[in-house]
Structures are given as structure tokens and as C-alpha cells.
């Protein structure tokens, strides 16, 4: 084998989560009353458009979660040795972005460095902007720069549009076969917005993603599309790698939150008495400690643990990964209280309803009543909380990384990007692209998550129904 697969802790959990979500989807598809609110989500243009954006992010994140260590080229065949750096499938796909580093800052799409240097030219030493090692290296003369950019962008847009047409055609073939109509008939209905779901929005969003992808495919191999950072690394690559970190924090934290919130929240509301008192006491104590400080304390402890047990982690990636996991764990432990309080209140109401009383008088066990009667009736609250929390967690990562208690400094994340770049705006001339890239990527993900969460909430929350 040319590589050795590496399964980091967060990788395993992510794929476990994915399996769980797929299982849930399969379950929902079979039951009409569970499917109905999702149908209503699918009819909302804003929510569907946001869902498409999220899907693009998720695909990148998943590709970035399949890790391996490549075999060293000069190692013997019978006793292979593997590199210490851990790569992912995504790294392999964008190999040139990862490996082609410049000396230091360069502006987006530039062909020369951002700072002047002494360079030798025709035997004389002059002070000028040196050409980049990789960015625009194929150009013989700087005057071709503009034409080349224009050419590549146009080609990229055309490719993207072509791919979008293919997409529309494929969608049409699939849908018209499903509804047993003619292809043209379905396309016409979709164009007029009568297909039953917001085809136009979905196609517009995916089409824009394809066009953007086409342009990037043309430009990225020859230029640094978003420039390079202080040590010359491609900013586009860093931003793309940060997607996984954001997604991991947004989803795995919830994985920690849910069992605590559901178990304790329902137990408090259902059993009342001393159970209720105890659980309320625990969450008031946790709630009253300022969140950032609790996270800071716990992260410092994890750091001490990692430093005093270096033998447990064989690669730097494994160390960074365990810190990321610990961060998710800690954020989960500090953030379950809100949902638990909500579920407690709801269970308090539910337990007095007739059908629960009836079940109890039939001698149905507590565990069964909770499973069959309480939990299904609070599930929509859980779902709404999950999607609403996601964006907040992504934003929190940036703040925590700025404070210095976020993810490992060696890990790619938007928080680390902002933290590393916050003094760049004070430079002359201004270096704006790293902050700009972190901003755009983070904003896109969080906005999409917020819009999607709004759609889900409106569809599932009976009270919010008529409000918009």
C-alpha cells in the first residue's frame, strides 16, 4: 500500500454522526407524519438555498476527514515507512495548493511578492518586487498577466455554465421520470416555479457554486487566488481546510450536548421531586459560571495533560485532534443547560396529559412511557435547538481561538486565521486578504446555517407557523 490510513478521533465521530443522520433520514422517510414538516422545509426557497450551500461545505468537510499518511518514497518495500504528516483525501485533490508555498505575503492573483527585496537583474542588484515562485510562473512576461487572468476566468465561467446545464438536464430527467411527465413539461413547470419545490433557487445556488468552482479550477493551478499569508502559504487552501474545523465544532459539540440535555431535561420534568431538585441545582451551578472561563480552565487542563503524556499521541495531527475533541466536549458540557431547561418545562406539561396518565395506570414502565410518549413529543424542540446552536458554535470557535483557548494553534481554523492576521491591517501597504477570506468563508457558512435553521424552526414549531 502506498499509504497508511489514519483514523483520528474526530473522523470516527464524524462518520458515526453521518451514519446516525442517514439512519434518521431512512426512518423519517417511512413515516408520513415525520416527513410532513420536512416537506414544508423543502418548499421554502430560502431554506433550500441555504441547505445547498451547507451541502457544499459538508462535502468538503467530509473529504477532509478521510486521513492517511503517505509512504516515504525512499523507504524499502518490505518494511515501509510512512511520513509523519497526516494528509486527507481533500489534500490529495488540491495538492498544488498545499505544497506550493511562496516566501511571504503576496496579494490575491498576484505574480510578484507583496514586499520589495534586493534582487539581481542583469548583473545589477536592484530593489524591486520579485516574481513569485509559483504564482503566474508560466507567464514569460508580466504584461501577459491581465490577458491570462481574463482568459482563464472566461473559460472557468463557461465550464461552470456548461456543468450547470448538465445539472439542469440531469435534474429534469430524474424528476420527469419520477413524476412520469415529459422532460420539457417538467422544465417549463420548474421555470415557472410550479414544480412543488424551489427548483429555481436550488439551481441558482448550485449553478453559482459550479461557476465559482470552474473559475477556481482554472485559476488556482496557476495563481494564488486569495493570495498568500506571512509564511507564504496559500490562503485559499487554509480557508478550505478550516471548513472541517468549523463543521466539527458545530456538530460534535451537539453530539455531546444531546444525551445530557435530553436525559437530564426529561428526567427532571418527568420524575419531579428530588431528581428535579438535583438536576436543577446542577444546571444552575454550571450556568452561573461564565462560559468562557470554564472552557478556558478546562482547555488549560487538557493542555497540561497532553504536555505531560506526549507518548500517547504519535503525530502532531493526533495532538491537535485530541484538543479539538476536548474543546467540543467542554463546549458541550457547558451548553446543554438551555435545552435541558426547555425540555424540563415541556415534560412537566406532558406528564399531566391524559394519554400519559392512562399509560401509567396501565402499569407501563417509566422508561417505556418516556420513550413512547414523552420523547417523540419533545423531539421537534431538540431538532430546532440543534440547528439553531450550530451557527453560534462556529462563531464561538473564532472568539475562543482569539482568546487562546480554542483549537490547537497548528490547526487550520478561521479563528486562528483571524488571530494571526489581526495586525495585518496595520501594515503599510495593507494586507487584507487573509482577514477577508476568513470573513467570507465564515460568514457564508454561518449565514447559510442561520437561514436553514429559520426554515426548520418555522416548519417544526407550531407557534412560529403564522408569524412570518
Amino acid at each position, binding site marked *: 500500500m502506498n499509504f497508511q490510513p489514519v483514523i483520528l478521533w474526530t473522523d470516527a465521530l464524524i462518520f458515526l454522526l453521518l451514519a446516525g443522520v442517514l439512519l434518521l433520514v431512512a426512518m423519517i422517510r417511512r413515516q408520513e407524519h415525520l416527513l410532513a414538516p420536512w416537506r414544508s422545509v423543502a418548499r421554502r426557497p430560502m431554506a433550500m438555498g441555504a441547505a445547498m450551500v451547507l451541502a457544499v461545505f459538508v462535502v468538503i468537510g467530509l473529504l477532509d476527514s478521510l486521513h492517511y499518511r503517505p509512504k516515504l518514497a525512499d523507504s524499502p518495500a518490505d518494511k515501509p515507512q510512512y511520513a509523519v504528516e497526516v494528509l486527507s483525501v481533500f489534500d490529495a485533490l488540491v495538492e498544488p495548493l498545499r505544497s506550493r508555498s511562496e516566501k511571504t505575503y503576496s496579494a490575491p492573483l498576484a505574480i510578484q511578492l507583496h514586499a520589495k527585496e534586493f534582487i539581481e537583474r542583469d548583473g545589477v542588484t536592484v530593489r524591486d518586487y520579485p516574481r513569485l515562485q509559483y504564482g503566474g510562473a508560466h507567464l514569460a512576461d508580466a504584461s501577459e498577466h491581465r490577458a491570462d487572468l481574463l482568459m482563464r476566468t472566461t473559460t472557468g465561467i463557461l465550464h461552470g455554465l456548461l456543468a450547470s446545464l448538465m445539472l439542469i438536464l440531469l435534474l429534469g430527467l430524474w424528476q420527469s421520470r419520477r413524476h412520469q411527465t415529459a422532460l420539457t413539461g417538467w422544465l417549463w413547470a420548474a421555470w415557472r416555479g410550479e414544480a412543488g419545490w424551489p427548483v429555481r433557487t436550488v439551481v441558482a445556488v448550485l449553478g453559482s457554486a459550479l461557476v465559482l468552482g470552474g473559475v477556481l479550477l482554472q485559476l488556482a493551478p496557476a495563481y494564488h487566488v486569495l493570495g498568500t499569508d506571512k509564511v507564504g502559504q496559500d490562503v485559499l487552501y487554509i480557508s478550505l481546510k478550516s471548513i472541517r474545523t468549523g463543521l466539527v465544532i458545530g456538530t460534535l459539540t451537539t453530539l455531546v450536548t444531546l444525551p445530557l440535555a435530553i436525559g437530564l431535561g426529561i428526567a427532571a420534568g418527568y420524575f419531579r421531586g428530588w431528581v428535579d431538585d438535583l438536576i436543577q441545582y446542577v444546571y444552575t*451551578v454550571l450556568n452561573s*459560571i461564565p462560559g468562557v*472561563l470554564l472552557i478556558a480552565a478546562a482547555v488549560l*487542563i487538557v493542555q497540561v495533560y497532553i*504536555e505531560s503524556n506526549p507518548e500517547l499521541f504519535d503525530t502532531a495531527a493526533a495532538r491537535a485532534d485530541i484538543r479539538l475533541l476536548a474543546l467540543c466536549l467542554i463546549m458541550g458540557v457547558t451548553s446543554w443547560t438551555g435545552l435541558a431547561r426547555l425540555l424540563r418545562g415541556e415534560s412537566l406539561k406532558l406528564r399531566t396529559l391524559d394519554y400519559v396518565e392512562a399509560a401509567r395506570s396501565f402499569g407501563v414502565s417509566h422508561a417505556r412511557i418516556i420513550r413512547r410518549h414523552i420523547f417523540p413529543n419533545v423531539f421537534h424542540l431538540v431538532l430546532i435547538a440543534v440547528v439553531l446552536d450550530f451557527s453560534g458554535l462556529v462563531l464561538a470557535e473564532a*472568539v475562543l481561538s*482569539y482568546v*487562546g483557548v480554542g483549537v490547537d494553534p497548528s490547526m487550520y481554523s478561521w479563528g486562528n486565521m483571524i488571530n494571526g492576521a489581526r495586525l495585518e491591517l496595520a501594515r503599510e501597504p495593507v494586507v487584507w486578504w487573509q482577514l477577508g477570506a476568513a470573513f467570507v468563508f465564515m460568514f457564508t457558512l454561518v449565514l447559510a446555517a442561520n437561514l436553514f435553521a429559520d426554515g426548520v424552526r418555522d416548519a417544526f414549531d407550531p407557534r412560529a407557523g403564522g*408569524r*412570518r
Partner: protein
Amino acid sequence: MFAYIVRRLFYAVPILIGVNLLTFALFFVVNTPDDMARLQLGAKRVTPEAIERWKVEHGYDKPLLFNASAAGTQKFTDTIYFQHSAAMFAFEFGESDDGRNIGNEIRTRMWPSLAIALPVFVIGLLVNISFALLMVFFRSTYLDLWGVVLCVVLMSISGLFYIIAGQYFIAKLWNLLPISGFAGGIDGLKFIMLPVLVGIVSGIGSGARWYRTIFLEEIGKDYVRTARAKGLSEIRVLFRHVLKNGMIPILTGAVVVLPLLFMGSLITESFFGIPGLGSYTIDAIQAQDFAIVRAMVFLGSFLYIVGLILTDISYSWVDPRVRLQ
């Protein structure tokens, strides 16, 4: 009323004890004083003697909970728990790693924090309510729809970017206000303005949207219909009836954060160089000064619990239907 407050205060005691024990466990049991010493001394200078010396200097050389070698009540008082954790109940926070008294630092640093946090809170509340009322007035029109979308957009921007953009555009590019710093008295006004502005703007998105839903919930109620049926104008209905009743959940929700304003905001203070409690905390986290972090945890919890009690009292004050037993 008075008896109720006293009872609530007693109810707060077990919670504070819980916080105290939890922080003690986090800082001394999971993470032993030896680990702290190693972290503080750095990898190079770690020798068993150096660790011992560091522990003696900072008073961490005693047993955790029970001192068998001491006599009488000193068996319990001559321990790390009693001297470093239980002492906080008397607001004795001890000394930080650089030898300063933490209690004194807190007393001087809370005023700059308050100078930023209070205007952000008060003006922010007014601005958010105004925006929410505007959206409610134009409800189910395009103005309302785009208002909500704008709120979601504003919500999706990280707080760090509001600060960075504010400093870059207002302070650096247009030279309107100083980029960071702090001064007492009237001179301080120009330093305060930018952080306050940034704080207000970054809160509009979530605040206005949240208040809008509160007002919309109120506007569907019977008494509003009655008011309209009497022939009152929409503006009068909105200000006289909806605003007044909507203020109940808004104000009581705001009261709980009121005491916490003393703690300041970590990020804002560190970006703008405000010598408040927020930047104090952030410096302590970055320098891994556990004594300060412990003190701030206790202070934060204490203020939060004060906020909870104030909330209960304010409920009975604004809403006569609520009775305290």
C-alpha cells in the same frame, strides 16, 4: 418581600458552594499544583526543587483538604482548599502570580469595564427596541421581511469582524476616533465612543429580531384587538399597549445580565486596550495565571446569582400578577 429576599439569598449559598467546589476540583485536583508549577516554570527549568520552591512561594505546598500534621481547627484551615478556595466567600482573592492583590485589581478595574458595558447595554436596548417596533409597525410587508433578513445577516457576522472593521475604517482610515486606549474623566469619552458603537452595532441583529418576536406575540392578543376596536390609532396601540406589555419579558430578561456588566467584555476590552476586568481575565488566561481565573469564575458566578435574584424581584415589581411566596 424582605423575607422572600432573605430566603432567596440562602438558596444562593448552596449554588455558590457548588461553584466553589467545582472550580476547586478543576484547578487543584484534576490539575495538581505540580502541573501548574511545571507550566509556569517552562520546560527548561523544571527540577523537583524548583517545583517545590514555586509551590512554597505561592502557598500551594499544603495538603488539599485535610492537614493531619496540624493541630486543632488548623487541621482544616491550614489547607489549600481553605486558604485558596473557601476564602473567596469572604471576597479574599489572594495574590496573582506577579504578587498583586487580586481584590484591589478588581476594585479599580471594574469601573473602566462598566464605562463601556453600561452604555452598550442601555443604548443598545433602546436601539434594538426601536428597530423591532419599526419592523412590527410594517409587519408582513417587504420592509419587515428585509428587516428580518438584514437581522440574520448582521447576526451571521462574527463579533471579531465588527471590532476589526470599526477600528480599521473609523479609526485608521477616517481618523475619526482613537484606535484604542483609555483615560479617566471627560478625556475618556473619545476612547469610549468607538467600543460602545461597535458593541451596539454587533448586538442589533440578534436583539432586534428577538424583540420583534416578543412584540408580535403580544400584538396577537385580545386586549390589542379591543384597543383597535375602540378606534385607537395603530401608533397609539403600538406604544401604549404593545410596547408596555412587551417590556415585561424584555426588562426581566435584561435584569439578569445587569450585574454581569461589571465583568466587561473579554474581546472588546482586549482589542481596544481598556484596562477593565475583561482584559484582566484574558491576560490571565494567556499567562495561565490560575489564581486570577479562579477569582473571576467566583466573581462571575456570584454576580450571575445576584442577577437571578434581581430578576425574581423585578418580575413581581413590573407584573402585579406575580406573587412571591
